């Protein structure tokens, strides 16, 4: 049990997927303008990453390894993730059209969110079992959501200040992310 807790908090705080592993930077910079959208995005990503961890783990150990097809891992995983994202997109469009509107182009882009494929590959590389993989997937997504929401909160306040012209947009967002990343480095001492 303590193992599971270590995996969870490790993925959320110590090796935060966005701020220390650099996975999922595109949506982090793109969807982090409003707190509300970033929570929606975070929920969609959490669901996809939890599901993806489970499905890819099962595929790896029940299909690829027994047939020694490990070299097909990248291709198989990305196809599974693409189908999962399509599925989530359908569900969100039915359940909450407002959220669907707000997430816009970034929903299909979860497919190319490297955090999803990244977590699937990391699960295999680290050698987690099925349950640990799912916990790691969900925790990674929670860490992603946390970074996204903090960033959105800061950027909402930035609307009120005047920023030097050349720093507007991505440039300033990156520097803020850097400072957040320094803050998250502080968690490393805790373990």
């Amino acid at each position, binding site marked *: 049990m303590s193992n599971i807790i270590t995996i969870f908090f490790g993925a959320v705080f110590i090796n935060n997927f966005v*701020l*220390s*592993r*650099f*996975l*999922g*930077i*595109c949506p982090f*910079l793109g969807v982090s303008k409003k707190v509300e959208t970033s929570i929606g995005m975070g929920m969609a990503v959490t669901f996809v990453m939890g599901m993806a961890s489970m499905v890819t783990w099962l595929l790896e150990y029940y299909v690829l390894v027994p047939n020694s097809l490990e*070299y*097909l*891992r*990248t*291709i198989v995983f*990305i*196809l599974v993730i*693409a189908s999962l994202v399509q599925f989530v997109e359908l569900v969100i469009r039915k359940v909450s059209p407002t959220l669907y509107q707000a997430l816009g182009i970034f929903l299909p*882009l979860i*497919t*190319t*969110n*490297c955090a999803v*494929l*990244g977590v699937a*590959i*990391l699960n295999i*590389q680290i050698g987690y079992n099925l349950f640990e993989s799912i916990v790691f997937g969900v925790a990674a997504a929670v860490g992603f959501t946390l970074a996204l929401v903090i960033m959105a909160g800061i950027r909402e306040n930035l609307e009120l200040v005047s920023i030097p*012209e*050349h*720093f507007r947009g*991505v*440039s*300033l*967002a*990156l*520097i803020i*992310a*850097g*400072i957040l*990343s*320094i803050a998250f*480095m502080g968690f490393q001492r805790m373990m």
Partner: protein
Amino acid sequence: MSLMNDFSKGLVKENPVFRLVLGMCPTLAVTGLAINGLGMGLSTTAVLLSSNLVISVLRKAIPEKIRIPCFIIIIATFVTIVDMLLKAYQPALHSQLGIFVPLIVVNCIILGRAEAFASKYPVVNSMVDGLGMGLGFTLSLTLLGAVRELLGNGTIFSANIMGAGYQPFRIFSFPPGAFIALGLMMAGMNILAKKFKLE
């Protein structure tokens, strides 16, 4: 002339990292050392060139509705090939780049070029476009890697630049330094772009 334009636009005017802000994850993750940035850039260029070639050849055969899955399979195939080649011939670089080698498959630049260029234009133009974009990406990664290595370690491509008395900014070798260095460089590029009227 248009071929020249297809090639050069990726280097400066539509530089994938500094102008289009695509492919940020590998850009930030592997640029602790200039050599890793160069290796990542060249691997991505190889995939981009081959996938643009194949997609352009097949552009009339791929049905409109399922084009994205088709593109992804083609890209993933080349990523797997590059992954295997790196593992066989450059094992040190392969382990340094780690998980970011298979993750080339989700680099938005590659799918972006497939969708925006290779699926519409003839083979030669698509290859030139892929090469230009890939080299623009390589250039940016190497530059960022060199800046970070110089500040964080006092070296570039492991050659000592700053002399023995240099007190390195260790932070630039760590994740926060990647964000801050790229943010500052991007602001610098904005100033340059404005000066040379690239907008």
